[in-house]
């Protein structure tokens, strides 16, 4: 929930283990402690979507969870993130949008040792969208009082043997009936591709078909739909930029339009199961669906420039569940 800076300071001093999201000037005022944070002024609070430069969104870890370690990661150390995690638990990672770690994680996570075996959840932090290119997103590590616009920060959390963590996603997008698109190279940019078996240029395809680029490319991961959002289309250069990488060999299709995001979200949200101890949603959903003042079910959390549910996702709500397995 959104808290005043005074409220967050009190929680830190009281020894609470916190995941924080807020404006850089606010995060800089916090004392050292068991917390990690990232910059962003957009949130989904209990009352609905909200923009705030004066409040910090706080996710407090439950008492049964213990912080094993808070660690900063560079592109060199990031591949060991799962190895560093406790055997039973989860890791929360925050990365600055556009940073080298953001790019490296997005492209390489599936090949990291321990990937999927140890749950990694988190988000790409950002800035006011009107200040993209003028200000940089930053992450903060509470124990060391360090911050960075280049590196990631992770909180490795251990769970007792009677509990296990599971990451879930809620994606309102479904694959559309359009052409199948594949790429020969993986990455955050796409130009030449294969559309329904024919060599093509993606930018020309998007332009000629007048595709609504608010709709993501979608891939079917054995029934889970994974989105890749469109950042820009340069018809002259024949280049499309993405907010997450496309992967060579994966079949993509543009998503079906969603007419009522909030209704679609509420329909997609599971009615039962354990309560999420953390959730986050995408800035593109916030902006495109006009979520300011609107609620997305019972889920709250920071609005992000990319969501991490094991691997990097776009335009997806991510939630972390803890199950009793005894």
């Amino acid at each position, binding site marked *: 929930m959104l808290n005043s800076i005074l409220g967050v300071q009190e929680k830190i001093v009281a020894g609470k283990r916190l995941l924080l999201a807020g404006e850089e000037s606010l995060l800089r005022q916090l004392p050292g402690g068991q917390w990690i944070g990232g910059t962003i002024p957009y949130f989904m609070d209990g009352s609905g979507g909200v923009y705030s430069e004066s409040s910090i969104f706080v996710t407090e870890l439950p008492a049964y969870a213990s912080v094993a370690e808070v660690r900063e990661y560079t592109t060199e150390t990031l591949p060991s993130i799962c190895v560093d995690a406790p055997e039973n638990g989860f890791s929360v990672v925050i990365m600055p949008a556009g940073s080298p770690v953001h790019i490296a994680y997005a492209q390489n996570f599936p090949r990291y040792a321990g990937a999927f075996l140890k*749950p990694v959840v988190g988000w790409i932090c950002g800035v006011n969208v009107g200040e993209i290119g003028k200000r940089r997103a930053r992450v903060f590590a509470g124990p060391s009082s360090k911050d960075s616009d280049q590196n990631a920060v992770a909180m490795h959390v251990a769970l007792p043997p009677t509990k*296990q963590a*599971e990451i879930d996603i809620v994606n309102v997008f479904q694959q559309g009936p359009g052409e199948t698109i594949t790429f020969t190279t993986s990455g955050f940019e796409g130009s030449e591709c294969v559309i329904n078996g024919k060599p093509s240029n993606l930018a020309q395809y998007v332009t000629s078909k007048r595709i609504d680029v608010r709709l993501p490319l979608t891939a079917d*991961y054995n029934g889970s739909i994974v989105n890749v959002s469109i950042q820009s289309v340069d018809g002259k250069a024949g280049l499309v930029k993405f907010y997450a990488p496309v992967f060579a060999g994966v079949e993509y299709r543009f998503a079906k339009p969603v007419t009522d995001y909030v209704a679609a979200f509420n329909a997609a949200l599971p009615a039962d199961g354990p309560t999420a101890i953390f959730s986050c949603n995408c800035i593109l959903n916030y902006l495109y669906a006009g979520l300011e003042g609107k609620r997305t079910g019972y889920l709250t959390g920071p609005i992000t420039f990319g969501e991490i549910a094991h*691997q990097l996702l776009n335009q997806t709500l991510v939630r972390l569940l803890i*199950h009793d397995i005894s």
Partner: protein
Amino acid sequence: MVPLVTHPVWGELITGKRQVPPSKVAVNMLIANVRLSYKYDPTETSKHKLAQRMHDFFQKYEKLYQVELEQILERGTHA
């Protein structure tokens, strides 16, 4: 009971010979990613490593994904 790493079910999952119903996100992502890895490197060495990965996952989450494992073992259909 999680099958041994040498059980053919893992290889069938990795190569796509065994189709499984949509499942929990972690299971879906793991299956999709091991299949993609095998597509990039369709060797026996690669298959063995990926089988180990699948086995370790279901061993660790045997209680959490018991239903999903049963579906893979009993209701998986061959492509």
